[in-house]
């Protein structure tokens, strides 16, 4: 059951990720990226990270991608213009990329032999309670620093995108 769940959503994630790279229109890439993020949220649930899965859907697939799609529509971004690439690149690019991915998969499998296997419910420490406890005790300083970072980002975005007042 876990294996089927993993395979289905891993394949969806990889297909959507390939789609992000090969689509020429940015809005298609954005929709595919939402597919990647949604299937990753399911895999997080499988790994027992329920809080992070919820945050993934709300923050990434919700807020960040809405921002992306909003900017794409605001700028009226059209299809990417294809310019001449040499015949060598067109012929060798995709097989070399597939070779690289295969090599990568092979080495990861070599590095981590079947030491441990994931099954649903094997780790229950990812609840909002556990994460909140760690966030407000051990990692309190980092939490405060991220809030400052968000504040700086908000001010920076407003300063960059505002209309110049004469």
């Amino acid at each position, binding site marked *: 059951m876990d*294996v089927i769940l*993993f395979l289905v959503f*891993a394949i969806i994630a*990889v297909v959507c*990720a390939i789609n*992000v*790279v090969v689509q020429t229109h*940015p809005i298609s*890439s*954005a929709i595919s*990226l939402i597919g*990647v993020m949604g299937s*990753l949220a399911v*895999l997080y649930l499988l*790994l027992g*990270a329920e809080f*992070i899965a919820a*945050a*993934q859907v709300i*923050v*990434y697939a919700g807020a960040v991608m809405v*921002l*992306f799609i909003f*900017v794409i529509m605001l*700028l009226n*971004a059209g299809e*990417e*213009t294809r310019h001449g690439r040499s015949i060598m690149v067109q012929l060798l*690019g995709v097989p070399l*990329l597939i070779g690289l*991915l295969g090599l*990568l*998969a092979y080495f*990861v499998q070599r*590095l981590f*032999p*079947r*030491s*441990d*296997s*994931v*099954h649903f419910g*094997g*780790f229950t*420490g*990812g609840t909002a309670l*556990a*994460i909140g406890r*760690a966030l407000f005790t051990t*990692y309190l300083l*980092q939490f405060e620093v*991220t809030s400052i*970072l*968000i504040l*700086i*980002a908000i001010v*920076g*975005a407003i300063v*960059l*995108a505002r209309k110049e007042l004469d």
Partner: protein
Amino acid sequence: MTGVPISWFLTLSAVLFALGVAGFVFRRNIITVFMSIELMLNAVNLSFITFSYQLKQVDGHIFTFVVMVVAAAEAAVGLAIILTIFKNRATLNIDQIDSMKN
């Protein structure tokens, strides 16, 4: 009951990261390049969560949380920069945005 090997998750993470790098290098639209960066961040998050499962500790989740915060801040500022570039140059092609090259 047989579960999913840890290495499968790490392989998926590596594959997604490599696809993100490919998008970052090959694409010419600045927004798509930016989305490839988000894809890479997501891939790294997956390996954080996987190691957190293997070590049975919650620290990886905290790292993922921080990465998400940084990604949200980066998206806000980056898209504001893209808006400013488009206002000044009326293009999204990164080959034409090369004023700092020389």
